[in-house]
C-alpha cells in the first residue's frame, strides 16, 4: 500500500468513526455521502481499487455502497 492509500483508509475510518454514534445503517450512508461530496474522483477510485483490509466495518460498508452505485 502506498502512503496515499494508507491515508485514504485512515480518512475513511475517521469519517466513519465520527458518524458511528448515529447507528450503523445511518453511519454507512452518511460516510458514503461524505466521501462522494468531498473526495476528488481519483481518491475515490483509489480507495475502491485498493486493499480494504484496514477499513472499519462502517467505512467498508460505505465503500461497498459507493462501489455499487458510484
Amino acid at each position, binding site marked *: 500500500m*502506498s*502512503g*496515499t492509500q494508507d*491515508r485514504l483508509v485512515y*480518512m475513511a475510518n*475517521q*469519517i466513519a*468513526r*465520527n458518524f*458511528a*454514534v*448515529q447507528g450503523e445503517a445511518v453511519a454507512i450512508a452518511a460516510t458514503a455521502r*461524505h466521501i462522494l*461530496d*468531498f*473526495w*476528488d*474522483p*481519483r*481518491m475515490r477510485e483509489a480507495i475502491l481499487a485498493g486493499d480494504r483490509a484496514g477499513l472499519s466495518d462502517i467505512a467498508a460498508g460505505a465503500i461497498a455502497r459507493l462501489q455499487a452505485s458510484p
Partner: protein
Amino acid sequence: MGYEPQADFGTPEVRADTQVTLTIDGRSVTVPAGTSVMRAATTSGGAIPSLCATDSLAAFGSCRMCLVEVEGMRGTPASCTTPVAQDMIVRTQTPRLEKLRRGVMELYISDHPLDCLTCSANNDCELQDTAAEVGLRDVRYGYAGAHHLGQQPDLSNPYFLFAPDKCIVCSRCVRACDEVQGTLALSVEGRGFASKISAGQRADDFLSSDCVSCGACVQACPTSALMEKSVKEHGKPERAVITTCAYCGVGCTFRAEMRGEQLVRMVPWKDGKANRGHSCVKGRFAWGYAHHQDRITTPMIRESVDQPWREVSWDEALAFTAGRISAIKAQHGARALGGITSSRCTNEETFLVQKLVRAGFGSNNVDTCARVCHSPTGYGLKTTFGTSAGTQDFDSVMDADVILVIGANPTDAHPVFASRMKRRLRQGAQLIVIDPRRIDLVRSPHVQAAHHLPLQPGTNVAVLTAMAHVIVTEGLADEDFVRDRCDWDEYQDWARFVSDPQHSPEFLEAVTKVPAAELRAAARLYATGGNGAIYYGLGVTEHSQGSSTVMAIANLAMATGNIGRPGVGVNPLRGQNNVQGACDMGSFPHELSGYRHISDGATRTMFEQDWGVALDPEPGLRIPNMLDAAVDGTFKAIYIQGEDILQSDPNTHHVAAGLAAMDCVIVHDLFLNETANYAHVFLPGSTFLEKNGTFTNAERRIQPVRKVMEPANGLEDWQVTQALANALGLGWAYTHPAQILDEIARLTPTFAGVSWDRLEREASLQWPVNDQFPDGAPVMYVDGFVRGKGHFVVTDYVPTDEKTGPRYPLLLTTGRILSQYNVGAQTRRTANTAWHPEDVLEIHPLDAENRGLKEGDWARLASRTGETSLRVSVTDRVAPGVVYTTFHHPETQANVVTTDYSDWATNCPEYKVTAVQVTPSNGPSDWQEDYAGLTARSRRIAAEPAE
C-alpha cells in the same frame, strides 16, 4: 477626497427614544435626550472651543474651555458635561465667556513651547486652533511655566513619540487607553500644574510599559505631545482615502492619509462600523512592509528549482507559465492542475483565481488557506444552521450578558473587537473562557472571567457535551425556542445522547481535566445569565474534531435559544482579513460561490452559461490531497496566490515533498516566501494599498479596499490573474474590480444586491443582500434558519489519535500574538519585531524544572514528525503537561513538528495538539541549519542588478 481632519463632535453619540429641542445662539436644535450641550451645538454647526473633550470618550470636564451660559442657570457650566434639556436657552459666545476662555488659554500657553512654526504638528493642533478661536493675544503669566518645558521626549515606541513639553495634561490619552482600548497603561502622575502623563511605573517608557501600541491615545491627543513619527518625517497629509485593513478578520476601516504617493499615516475611521474608530498596532502602524527592500517587483522564472532565478518581462513570465500549464494539461489532463486562493486578497481576486482554475485549467482543484483555519466552521455551521458564517455583527456584543470565549484569544488575534468586548465586560457582562491557556482576557484590568475552564487540549467536544448535559438534565434548555425553530425529534435524540451519565462533567473530568463543579457553574451561567454569545477561534477548528466542536457549539446555542437577536449567537473570529470572503467566493474544491455544491446541476449550469465553458461536476482536491497526489505523480502544477503553504501548513516535510514533486509551481506574492523555494515562476504581487476591491470581515461585512498608490510591481493582483488567464487564451477583459463584483452578484444569490457603486454610497454591506434582505443582515436567523429548521447533530467525542506517551509526554498547542500576523511575512518586515523578535516556547515551571530549563534557555522541541529549537519562557499561563508556541518566524518552523492529523470532515490540520518532548539544547537544530542553506540557495537571483 481632500484633507480634512475627521469631524469631532466633542462627546459620544447618545441613542435615546425621546428627542429634546433647545435653542443655541438663537438656533433651534433637536437632539436625542441625554446629548451634551457641546454635541448639540457642534452637530448644528456651532462649535464650542474645547480641549479635554473628544467624541470617542466620555466627557471629563477638566479644561474649562467649553464654558457656556444657560438661561436660568447660575455660573458658566461646561458644555461637555451639561446635558441638554427641553426649551433650554444656551449662549456660547458672550463677552464674559470670551474673557474666561482667554484666561484659561493663557494658563495653558504659559507652560507650552511656542515653536508652532517648527512643531511637527504642522498646524494639525487643537491647542493652536483653540487659541485662535478664543483670540489669544497676550500671556500675562509669561512663557516660562517650567513644569513641562524642557522635558525629554520618549522615543521608545517605534511608531509614535511622546513629547512631554507639548502635553497640556488634558488626560485624553489616559482616558482613551482606559475607555477605548481597555489596557489602562497610562496614568496622570502628580497633581495640578505639575501633573504629568506616565506610561506605567515611573521608570517605564512606552515600549517597556503595558502599552500595546494601539494608537488610541495618539489619535485622542489634541497637540503633538503624542504623535506618529511618520508625520514628523513626512509632514502633514494632503488627502485621505478610506480603505480596509488587510491584516485580521475584524476588518477595521482606516483613512489612509497621504502626501503625494507617500502614505503618511493610517488613522482609524470613526464611521467604520467594524471598528468604530479604533485600531490595533498592526493596521494602524505596521504597513511599512509595502516598501520593504525584500519586496520583489519583477517577474522571475527558472527551469528547475536548483537554478537561480532569472528576472524577465511580464510577457516572458506569462508565456513560460502558460506553456508549462498547457503542456501538463495535454499530457496529464486537467485534474493535474490546481490553485490556491488567498484570504489576504480581495473577493474579486479570489473569485478570479477560482474561476481560472475551474474555467481555465478545467479542474475543481482549488482550495484556500481557510482549509487550515476555518473549514470546520464552513462544514459545521452549514450543517446545523444552513449557511456558513457568524450570526452577529460586532455591535451585538454590547447587548450580550454572558460572553463565552472558546479557543480564541481575542486580545491578541482580534484586538479591536476584544476592546469592544472588554468594554462590555467592564459594564458588567459575565465572561466564560474555555482555553487550555490562561489567555489575557481571563484576568486583565477591570476584567475577570467568572469561569476559566482550562481544558486538556483536544477535549473541546467533551467539554461542550458536558455543558449540554448540565443544561438538559437540569432543565435549563429553552424548549419553546427549540420547538418553534428546530427539528424537535432531532433535538430529543440529541438531548437523550447528552443526558447519558457518561457525558456528565463528573464522568468526563478524567478526560477534560476541568473540575466538574466549575463546568457545571459555567453551563448554568451560559444557559440562564441572559443573552449568551459564543465567540470562538482556531482553538476550536484546528483539531481532528474541529467540525464536531463547531456543531456542538451550534447545538448549545440552539438549545438555549441564543440565536436570532442582538446579544447572542455563534461567532467565529476569523483569522485573516478575508477568510470569510475567500470562503464565500467559492474557494473550496466542492463548492461554487455562496456555498453551493459543484454537483448541483442548476448552479453549475448558471456558471457554465455565464462563463461559456463546461465545468467538472466532481469535487476537486483539497490542499493536503493535492500534496499527496503530487507525491503520487497525478498532480503536477499549482498557482498559489498570496499564501505561504510551506510555512503555514502542517508537517513541513510533507509539504516540501509535495511541492518538490510538481513540474510547475507558480507563486504570486509580495516576497520570495518559503514556498517560493520550490517555485518555478514568481509573479510579483501588490499590497492592499495598491489595489481596488472588497474584503469581507468576520461579521459578513463587505467593505471596499481602495488604491492609494500605484502598484510597485505595475499590476494589481487581479490583473496578474487576468493576464495569466489571457496567456492561456481565456480572453478576459475586466477593467475594474467593480465588473468582477457584478459577476459575483449575478452568480451568487446572497450577493445579489451588492455593487461597487452601492458600497461607495453605503461604505459597507453585511450579506445576505438580496430581495429578502435588501439592506443586508446584521443579525442572522431572526425569523428562521436558512435550512428551515435548525438541525441538532449528535457530536460524539472521538479523541485524537495523536497521543502522548513516554517518548512524547507533553502536548504542544500553537497560537498567535498581537504584534505579529500569521506567518509573519508582513509584520516581520516592520518595526513590530520590537515586540516579538522570535517565537518562544511557553512551558510550565514544573515541566521546565524537570528538564533543567530556565527562562531564555534554548530547547529542542521534538514530535513524531520532526524537531526544531527555540528559546523557552517559563510561565504558569500553561498547565503542567502543556507547552505553547507561535508560528510567526520561519527560522523556528513550528510546523516542522506538527502532524498530518486533521479534522475528520474537512482535513483542517490539527495544529492545536501535538505530542512532543522538550529537552535542553544549545542552538538551532540540523534541519533549521540545512533549511537556512536551502533558502539562501533557492533565493539566488541571477545577475542581480546593483542596488
